[in-house]
């Protein structure tokens, strides 16, 4: 249940919130050490990437792990695990390690990974090659579902062949297809469905070898760090964010330092009420649950958000304005998760369906106190019970609604809500994915990249 177009013809704007670089030869400029780069609206070819210092040898391969550890870089796929620790686990597991650039973003509210592969494929491939060298991998994969991204990655591989074998593996676009065990199963020739753990991919992954499954933004930041170790803090402590919400207001893909507050982000987005008075937000894709207005002074720092009981996840943030109701927001998230359950785990099918139905009752004004008690019980008891995190996301969404909006939930028990009655509370309301899905920016292709002389265009192979 995936739509590729959001309502109307809204386009996602791309605009950086990064301050000027404070040090280095280009101090005062805004684009050094950023993932958005100087021209986020345009496909960057190999020539331009090389001209801006890409594929350079500023950091020797054996110096990279130390640099990553010192920078504190954490993964950008959603879990936020320290990158250096994950790489060391793969390197130390023995065998012939494999690296996968994971560009399959299943979160409907996120577009950053597909934008990155569409606009800056060389930045990702540079990071992939550097990570591979650091852990001793000779085989790499780029895993994705977006056809435009696949095209641009294949062109980039032909333009500037990497120092290792890199295959592009395409998959169906589903919520769980980017989960790391699903990635491994698909590359191994199976379905893109999560597997029970252990073993985790770092122990046994592609071809049963230790496998580093790294989000494409993480790899992009590795490439930036290697090229500009002098800007390591700026690079490791900033993140891509997909900001949406506010009715028909255009979504925003941005890059911001960790210190940026949610309120500043809402204001930059100009969403509900010009961004002046958001009443809350749906956080982290569907992994951070809903937060209320008083949480909007939190910064987009993964550690600070986790400490406050929410999550940055993959950086997708949907603001709620005066015209929105958090019950509908939580309900639509739960409905999307229930529809996207891989239907492998009985507890996930039963749990996500029950949460969705309970939230729909609440939205319709027909819920009793028992429904609230069930939601509380599921939010505590269901996390960790499925093979992947989808059930945790649904349970977390329900729990966050009860915690952040207790008065709203109480009001919905007492009487139907007019906002919910017009949407999620209707028995056959519009599919949630229609409102949750953000359109992916389409970068211009300024010229046709030329393969380097003597390099066959088939350097990128399909499995």
């Amino acid at each position, binding site marked *: 249940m995936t739509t590729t177009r959001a309502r109307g013809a809204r386009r996602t704007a791309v605009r950086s919130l990064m301050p000027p670089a404070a040090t280095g030869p280009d101090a005062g400029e805004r684009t050094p050490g950023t993932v958005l780069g100087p021209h986020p609206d345009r496909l960057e070819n190999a020539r331009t990437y090389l001209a801006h210092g890409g594929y350079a040898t500023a950091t020797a391969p054996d110096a990279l792990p130390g640099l990553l550890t010192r920078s504190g870089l954490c993964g950008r796929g959603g879990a936020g695990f320290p990158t250096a620790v994950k790489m060391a686990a793969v390197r130390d597991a023995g065998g012939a390690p494999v690296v996968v650039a994971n560009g399959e973003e299943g979160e409907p509210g996120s577009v950053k990974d597909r934008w990155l592969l569409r606009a800056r494929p060389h930045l990702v491939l540079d990071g992939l090659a550097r990570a591979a060298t650091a852990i001793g991998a000779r085989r790499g994969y780029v895993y994705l579902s977006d056809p435009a991204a696949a095209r641009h990655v294949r062109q980039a591989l032909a333009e500037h062949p990497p120092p290792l074998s890199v295959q592009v593996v395409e998959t169906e676009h589903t919520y769980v297809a980017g989960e790391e065990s699903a990635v491994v199963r698909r590359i191994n020739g199976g379905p893109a469905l*999560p*597997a*029970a753990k*252990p073993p985790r991919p770092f122990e046994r992954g592609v071809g049963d070898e230790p496998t580093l499954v790294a989000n494409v933004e993480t790899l992009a930041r590795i490439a930036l760090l290697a090229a500009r170790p002098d800007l390591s803090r700026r690079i490791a402590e900033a993140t891509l964010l997909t900001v949406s919400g506010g009715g028909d207001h255009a979504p925003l893909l941005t890059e911001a330092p960790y210190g940026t507050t949610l309120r500043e982000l809402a204001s930059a987005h100009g969403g509900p009420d010009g961004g002046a008075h958001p009443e809350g937000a749906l956080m982290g894709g569907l992994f951070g649950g809903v937060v209320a207005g008083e949480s909007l002074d939190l910064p987009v720092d993964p550690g600070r958000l986790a400490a406050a009981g929410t999550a940055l996840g993959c950086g997708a943030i949907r603001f709620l304005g005066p015209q929105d109701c958090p019950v509908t927001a939580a309900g639509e998230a739960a409905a999307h998760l229930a529809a996207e359950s891989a239907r*492998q*785990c*009985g*507890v*996930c099918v*039963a*749990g996500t369906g029950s949460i969705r139905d309970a939230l729909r009752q609440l939205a319709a004004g027909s819920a009793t106190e028992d429904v609230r008690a069930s939601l509380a019980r599921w939010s505590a*008891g269901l996390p960790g*019970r*499925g*093979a992947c995190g989808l059930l945790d996301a649904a349970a977390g969404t329900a729990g966050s609604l009860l915690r952040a909006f207790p008065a709203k939930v109480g009001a919905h028990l007492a009487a139907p809500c007019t906002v919910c009655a017009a949407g999620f509370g209707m028995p056959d309301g519009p599919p949630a994915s229609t409102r949750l899905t953000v359109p992916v920016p389409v970068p211009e292709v300024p010229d046709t990249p030329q393969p380097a002389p003597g390099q066959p265009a088939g350097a990128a192979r399909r499995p």
Partner: protein
Amino acid sequence: MKLLLDSTLCQGYGLCQEHAPELIELDEWGYASVVAADVPPGAENAARDCADSCPNSALRLEN
């Protein structure tokens, strides 16, 4: 000894819980969850019976 559940295989038969009520809990839909993944001393036989009882081999032991 560890008792591990593959939740993709659990069909909610519930036989595991009959063999080892101290190790397994069944939820309101009948699906199992392992209460004590690290099998406590003395419960090893119960854990074995519990794993063997699953018609769908959803439970396994690891040392």
